[in-house]
């Protein structure tokens, strides 16, 4: 506060010295604080971090080569010495396969959502803020792709592009872009009509500045919540694609692929055969709960 202002305050508002009250934390800090107090979200985040860590550190943690199989050791049950989670149908250690499989499964889950977040978010914010012809064009194009049920579109694209992780990532990104665009456009349109955005326009600042300072902060929250919930869908879908033989190709380790190749094994070692599905379920569930926690933390209404 400048000297002149201090003088003004003293003159206008009297000699009473008001002790400065601690400033209210910034919005994002408040969200962070609320998240810290939510036990479910914390537990879920810890589990997720654990899974991610194990996947990244697979060479250290796995203890066995995920590709090395021996016919003699096929389909050993859980608790076999040396293979504590058993082996798969070609004798490869299941724990190692799960660890390495986590890499591809998580990648196939997170990468498409990130791509669609950037592309879809950009298109949606553009459509929402600019409106008019550009907005209509973008939204109508998205409508056509939105007309396909997601699995169908993903399968169609994958089926025609061929196998492989990159193809399945491309397919899933294409599938997720329309809902991303839709969400970003809706939220941006709402924000655009708020008075403070009008006031910012009236102060003669450029569109980019307005978007950066006023629109983005108010729009990112809901978009991020939706993106997090999409990750859980993406993990299930990508594993499903591999399950159908459209995604990752053998002999790579990936949870969906493992689920498929172990299908016949349920008659012999049912619990081993079900393990990859457990991993998919846990990971997907954690992302879902994290998304819910995020949404509750950001809802000012529930907390004030």
């Amino acid at each position, binding site marked *: *506060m*400048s000297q*002149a*202002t201090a003088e*003004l*305050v003293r003159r*206008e*508002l009297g000699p009473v010295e*008001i002790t*400065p*009250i601690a*400033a*209210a934390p*910034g*919005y994002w800090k408040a969200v962070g604080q609320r998240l810290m107090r939510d036990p479910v979200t914390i537990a879920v985040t810890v589990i997720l971090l654990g899974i991610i860590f194990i996947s990244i550190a697979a060479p250290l943690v796995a203890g066995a080569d995920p590709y090395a199989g021996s016919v003699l050791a096929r389909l050993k049950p859980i608790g076999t010495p040396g293979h504590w989670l058993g082996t798969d149908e070609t004798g490869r250690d299941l724990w190692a396969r799960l660890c390495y499989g986590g890499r591809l499964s998580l990648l196939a889950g997170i990468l498409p959502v990130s791509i669609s977040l950037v592309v879809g978010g950009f298109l949606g914010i553009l459509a929402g803020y600019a409106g008019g012809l550009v907005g209509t064009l973008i939204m109508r194009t998205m409508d056509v792709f939105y007309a396909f049920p997601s699995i169908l579109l993903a399968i169609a694209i994958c089926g025609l592009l061929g196998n492989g992780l990159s193809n399945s990532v491309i397919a899933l990104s294409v599938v997720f872009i329309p809902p991303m665009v839709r969400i970003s456009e809706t939220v941006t349109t709402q924000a655009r009509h*708020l*008075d*403070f955005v*009008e*006031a*910012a*326009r*009236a*102060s*003669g*600042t*450029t569109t980019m*500045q307005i978007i950066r*300072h*006023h629109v983005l*902060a*108010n729009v990112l929250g809901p978009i991020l919540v939706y993106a997090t919930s999409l990750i859980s869908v993406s993990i299930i879908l990508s594993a499903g694609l591999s399950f159908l033989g459209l995604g990752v190709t053998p002999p790579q380790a990936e949870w969906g692929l493992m689920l498929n190749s172990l299908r016949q094994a349920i008659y012999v070692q049912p619990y081993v055969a079900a393990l990859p599905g457990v991993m998919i379920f846990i990971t997907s569930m954690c992302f879902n709960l994290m998304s819910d926690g995020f949404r509750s933390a950001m809802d*000012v209404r529930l907390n*004030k």
Partner: protein
Amino acid sequence: MNMTADPRDRGGPAQPLLLVNDLRKHFPVRGGLLGRQIATVQAVDDVSFSVRKGETLGIVGESGCGKSTTARLLMRLIEPDAGDVVFDGDPVGDRHGLSVNAMRRQMQMVFQDSYSSLNPRMTMAESVAYAPRMHGLPAKEALSRAEDLLAQVGLNPRQYARRYPHELSGGQRQRVNVARALALEPRLVILDEAVSALDKSIEAQVLNLLAELKARFNLTYLFISHDLNVVEYVSDRVLVMYLGRVVETGPVEAIYARPRHPYTRALFASKPTLDPDRRTKEMPLTGDPPNPINPPSGCRFRTRCAFAQAICAELVPPLAAPLDGADDSGAHLVACHLPHAQQVLHA
């Protein structure tokens, strides 16, 4: 009037700060099978007025008469269909005149809803400092200017600078909005129903604040409101609008003591008063305001006017001096065809 020399002043005190000529805005109404335009809302039609330096011009009218649309047209938040706006001698938007951006540095606006006018995720100081920062002022200076302005509007910056909108009351927020409007050091401030949403006691405080600031910073005000008493209190001159058109304008005493247009008279007559000497003798306004989508031809008030004649349906009455010649400097203008309707009926 306190006219210390403003370096941006171009034409001296005689030149109006704001000159508005034949401003028009029609909104299309879409419907039907293919979403084509089926009608227009004639929100603002041929509105002309001027604002002198240092005065407060009050704009009154019912809801839907086009007051807020006019304000947004002036700020170029909406593009006008037709009409000129001249700011201190420079046409706005013209190649040789003032650019819209430059105009916005000299003309600012305070909105009605104090809460939605502020970004819920920005502190008070950040909100006030936003515009100067975006226009090039270094962040530190912008923040210190913001704190200074907060003090000027009566909020202790040490207490309020780092607060969020939801932590302040309506009156306090509106003060912040005023501070924000003053951040770019404008010469003209449009107050669009700025005090309408506040409790009466708070309203009085904010009005007094506005008067102080006007004197301190040499401001000119455009005060839009539907509250007749408040407009009488703050304005030097008054503009009365009805269904997108100006029906009467003049000095505040003249308008309030001797309203000429039948609409203005009915408007004042419908003001409830406890004064037994001022009983209502004539019929107050009846009926609902007609739809701005299909306004009546000619004089738009004729469907509710007790004096309507055939000519009222054919010709739009021009805004001109009262027909009985009784008025003074030509400052009091009425838009009505009929001298009989313009005569003041003495109680």
